[in-house]
């Protein structure tokens, strides 16, 4: 979070949209108080108004997720919590509510054929935001170049100095890879969540295709491609099938 706050500053500086945020902030506050009064539908409406203006942040998605949950829309809630985690992956509240929402699901699937090493790496990468990884990489690059400049200028070729430089180089490369993987997972691997109580997963993009299996609300899947109003999804248990776009929410 140390560089996270720095990052927010940078982002704020970049975002000239900030001027319009006063009106949005007002809507957000209204939604919060509606939620507090128990008017979850009203709260949801206002939150979505804020979201519709193109604003994307953890708090907003989390609160939207809560409103969805309270109005009984489990799938949408799970999708929102996933969106929120993308911007604040270590937030305890978001994690707790996602876990709680998942407990309400009907389908319990164990991820199969996924190497534990990849699972571990994925959780490490997704434990930080893409921006945190980027800042981390930049800092490491800065330190690495600083070390190189020092070596070039002073012609100090001691083992310790060289080791530090090599270490920083390795760290920078790893961090850079993590940055790339994070961006790829968070922004270039679309996922979806089923938002209807029960859906028949089809063998092809159309009603006429045969049923593969039945999935229930809240189940998430990787979207491989989209074709004429249907998603081709892969579930965590490696089952594959077509889901109508209207039956799922994109995460």
């Amino acid at each position, binding site marked *: 979070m140390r560089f996270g706050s720095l*990052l*927010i500053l*940078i*982002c*704020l500086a*970049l*975002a000239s*949209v*900030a001027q319009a*945020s006063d009106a*949005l*902030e007002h*809507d*957000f506050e209204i*939604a*919060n108080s509606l*939620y*507090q009064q128990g008017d979850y539908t009203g709260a949801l409406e206002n*939150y979505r108004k*804020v979201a519709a203006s*193109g*604003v*994307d*942040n*953890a*708090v*907003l998605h*989390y*609160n939207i997720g*809560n*409103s969805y*949950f*309270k109005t009984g829309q489990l799938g949408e809630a799970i999708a929102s919590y996933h969106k929120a985690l993308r*911007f604040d992956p270590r937030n305890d*509240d978001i994690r*707790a*509510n996602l876990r*709680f*929402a998942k*407990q309400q699901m009907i389908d319990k699937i164990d991820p199969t054929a996924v190497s534990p090493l990849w699972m571990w790496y994925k959780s490490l990468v997704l434990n930080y935001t*893409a*921006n945190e990884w*980027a*800042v981390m990489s*930049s800092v490491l*690059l*800065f330190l690495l*170049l*600083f070390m*190189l*400049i020092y070596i*070039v*200028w002073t012609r100090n070729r001691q083992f310790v100095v060289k080791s530090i430089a090599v270490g920083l180089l390795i760290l920078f490369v790893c961090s850079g890879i993590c*940055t790339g993987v994070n*961006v790829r997972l968070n*922004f270039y691997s679309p996922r979806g969540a089923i938002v209807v109580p029960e859906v028949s997963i089809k063998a092809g993009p159309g009603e006429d295709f045969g049923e593969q299996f039945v999935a229930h609300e809240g189940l998430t899947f990787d979207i491989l491609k989209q074709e004429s109003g249907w998603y081709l999804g892969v579930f965590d248990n490696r089952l594959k099938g077509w889901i109508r776009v209207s039956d799922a929410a994109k995460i």
Partner: protein
Amino acid sequence: MRLLRIVAIVMLIVAPATLFGGEISFSADVNTTEAAVSEPITLELTVSGSEQNLPEPASPDIDGFDVFGAGRSQQFSFVNGVTQSSVIHRFMLVPRQEGSFTIPPMELRYEGKTYSTKPIKITVTQAASSGNRQSQRSTGQSSGRRESSSDDYFVETVVDKDTIYVNEQLTLTFRFYQGKRLFSQPEYNAPSATGFWVEDLPPQKNYYKTVKGRDYYVAEVKTGLFPTSPGVKTIGEAVLTLKGEDITSIFDRDFFGFFDRGRSQSKPMRLATRPIEVVVLPLPADGKPADYSGSVGRFKMSTSIDKFEVEVNQPVTVTIKLSGTGNIKTLAEPAIPDLEDFRVFSSGKSENVSKAGYVVGGSKSFEVAFVPKRPGTFTIPAMSSNYFDPSDGKYKTLAGRSFDITVTGVSNEEIAAQSGRTTERMDLVATDIRYIITGKSGSGDQSGLFVFSPLFIVVNLLPIAALVIVFAVRRHRDRLAGDVGYRRLRRAVKMARVRLAQADRHLKQNEADKFYTEISRALHEYIGDKFNISAHGMTRLQLEKLFSDHHAPENLQARFFEIVATCDEGRFSPASHSGEKMREALKESENLIVEFEDTVK
């Protein structure tokens, strides 16, 4: 020294008793210190200590009292790993006459040490009912047998059964018939009863009975006998010895004439009973339970538990009480089950022997402690025992009841895992989602990716650029410091300019020879620096080869040699050169160097 030796000796004598012998205590107590004649007083002698086998005090012999054994009761307790047992020996003291008596200190020797009780004073008053009894007696006596004969006194022993089972109670009754009043206590020798466990059955019974038309005052003493093995057993003769005075001097005395006692002497009289044969049957093998306990009689069993809810490691005590008639002392402990969830051990027993109605019985309690190892709900199974009932010749089984108990707390394993700490676990029971996040801006946008922002590129390129610059500067300095050719190249133009400036000064002073020397040196040194050679003294051919090696243009070469020739000419015939010509040569030299720099690398 002498004193020390005495102390040492005393220590040697005392030490074994105090250090190595277990300490016991011995005390005496009576239920009352005032009693009427013939009214029994209970004397209790209590021996207690941590030893298993406590000594038994001798039957006391107390002046003025008839003494009967009245049984004993024993208690064991097991507290903090120490066994405490105490045995209470009860005796009936029946006062013979009124007055003040003292129960003398009773002595008990144990492991070389003598324990004694405190003396107890007893006041005996005139018997309340004695008036009535005496009138009876006088009636009996008035009917008149004044002469002394063998019919005056006789004894008999009677058994209640002549065929019994092993360990079944046989009641032996000894009766002493007195046709005349006795004034001293006769001496009684109990029958020998080899092969029997003997229990005195107090109290002595006194009554009047008419035998063959004569009234007798009967003293009846009962004894309980428990055969220990089967076979034909003989109960020996019981002997009563009467003192002579009681037999001879009857005539001269009235009833209250005992003050004359001892006035005359006579031979004592010995009264004996016939020996009795008894058939002792072995217990039937038919229907004998495998776990037969050896008890004979008629018993009931009751079980109780002290609590139904307990914490781990805290004992629950189940008390099994066997009560009824039979030889209580030989009652065996019921089998204690071995349970996986408990540590089980016997924590104590107590017995209470009663001789009510001259039947030996009572109760015996066994305490069994169950210490639970882990929490949960458990059943302590019913414990059972059995006995042989001689009245119908059958074996009977006794069963207690089982108990369901609840054990709370943390199991030993868990305690061990927590290295002795007892903590209460707080389990999260989530029933709802957590509340929304408020107080934070919800309209800020976080979707901007730093990786793709121009700032990211700038931020990362800056240090790279810095590295490149530093690298270049370092390299430049290195060449200056270490590479003469590089330094000369960098210096060539600069040096040439210095020489040409010097030439200009010579021009202004119109020193033609010096001017041309300077120009020539400037050009030659420039070439030397440029190509890192020594250009002085090079022939025209050598220079031409050098120029063509470095691809210098032809016209530049020609111009170079032309100006060198002008310089040579000027140096040797300075007068023929005007200021105009010198200025031309200087200008040409400068141009030549500039063009050389531009074209030749």
